[in-house]
């Protein structure tokens, strides 16, 4: 039995959907072209595709993926280093699942594991410490990958390692910051862009204020929103309202989770462990002040420093357009490898591997429409 209030929510959602489509049609008529909105976060790319909203609005609205998939933006050089580290006899590598199948220049972590490397998936970075305590003669390396959402958890894990004197533990730090990459993307943007959907869970840590620059510096209406269908639709409705009214601001459509100034406690733990540094991104090259490195006495926990390896320069993946897709300058459909030579079961580039990658989202949810 559906309660009256749930029925009311459903009816209101249908009304929001109808009005969002009306708004989109009005804007398209005025502009004489489709509306282009970038969803900065890879989780949004997948959520919109899975919800059916990407397809529902396709005639009037192009949802373009940005640089918000951490696995996708990890440079080939870092992938190669991580695979080489995992292949060392004394190393036990602990990683989030998305990293396993990302192709390196020579091999993926999954292939290294098949050759005998010890690679373990984790749900939480704290599991790396359990592995380190269980195997004191092994060197446990955690792949520290992610954005502002994940950085506090990696920092907290490091503090736990220090507190418990776990010395056979290091982190391969490739943590990145979304705002500098978004600035880099908007500076070299060569396509129409009418608004931004900002990453809800990054903003849970940073606060929505961290993205005010998208409005005042780049003149883009922007909405922070969540990932459930009502959040996606409410965010889209608000963004189109702003585009129609030429309201240049940042709105928070995820107020149950996102505060203006984020989570100060998480920010403090990050500041205690990391310093901001220039970082190498796939698709962008080096972006100033766009990543974290371990600072001060914490730097003894950096895997790159404990295990200095000389590796050949990482090459491009032949034919792969992940770099352009990350920057929003190409769609997965423009890649000649998409769907035929590059699939989730046999990925060529990281955007097809990760569940948050644009190519994977297109393949899983939109491919038959192409």
């Amino acid at each position, binding site marked *: 039995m559906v309660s009256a*209030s749930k029925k009311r929510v459903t009816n209101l959602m249908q009304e929001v959907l109808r009005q969002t489509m009306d708004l989109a049609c009005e804007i398209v008529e005025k502009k004489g072209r489709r509306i282009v909105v970038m969803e900065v976060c890879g989780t949004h790319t997948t959520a919109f595709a899975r919800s059916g909203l990407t397809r529902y609005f396709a005639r009037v609205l192009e949802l373009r993926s940005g640089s918000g998939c951490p696995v996708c933006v990890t440079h080939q050089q870092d992938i190669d280093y991580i695979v080489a580290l995992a292949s060392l006899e004394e190393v036990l590598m602990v990683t989030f699942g998305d990293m396993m199948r990302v192709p390196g220049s020579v091999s993926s972590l999954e292939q290294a594991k098949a050759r005998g490397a010890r690679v373990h998936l984790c749900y939480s970075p704290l599991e790396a410490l359990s592995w380190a305590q269980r195997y004191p003669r092994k060197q446990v390396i955690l792949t520290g990958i*992610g954005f502002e959402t994940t950085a506090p958890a990696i920092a907290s894990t490091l503090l736990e390692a220090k507190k418990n004197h776990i010395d056979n533990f290091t982190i391969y730090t490739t943590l990145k910051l979304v705002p500098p990459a978004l600035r880099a993307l908007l500076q070299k943007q060569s396509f129409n862009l009418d608004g931004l959907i900002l990453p809800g869970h990054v903003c849970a840590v940073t606060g929505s204020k961290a993205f005010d620059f998208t409005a005042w510096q780049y003149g883009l209406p922007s909405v922070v929103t969540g990932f459930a269908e009502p959040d996606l639709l409410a965010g889209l409705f608000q963004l189109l309202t702003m585009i129609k009214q030429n309201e240049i601001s940042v709105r928070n459509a995820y107020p149950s989770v996102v505060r203006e100034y984020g989570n100060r406690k998480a920010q403090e733990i990050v500041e205690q462990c990391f310093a901001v540094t220039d970082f190498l991104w796939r698709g962008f090259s080096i972006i100033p002040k766009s990543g974290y490195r371990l600072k001060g006495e914490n730097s003894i926990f950096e895997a790159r420093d404990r295990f200095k390896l000389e590796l050949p320069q990482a090459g491009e993946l032949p034919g792969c357009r992940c770099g352009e897709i990350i920057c929003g300058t190409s769609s997965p459909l423009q890649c000649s490898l998409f769907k035929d030579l590059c699939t989730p079961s046999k990925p060529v580039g990281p955007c097809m591997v990760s569940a948050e990658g644009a190519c994977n989202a297109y393949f899983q949810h939109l491919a038959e429409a192409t």
Partner: protein
Amino acid sequence: MCLGIPMKIIERQTPSRAVAESLGVKRIVCTDFVPEVKTGNFVLVHVGYAMQIIEQWEASERIKFLEEILAGEGAIGDGVSK
């Protein structure tokens, strides 16, 4: 990677650990970033860490929110205007 799962805190174990539950699945989560969290609160959990206390919306609040945005009320806008 930025997935967050809403979970309910059902038991505080230590100052930095709590048992959280979602859809019948229980997990120990680290509460370092939300030290003020209490049993009964809902939190957003990312990679085993409670990242934020969620203001739990009842259906009535969802209705209010949707009615507000349909009415074009800018109550939730907190950004800058040019």
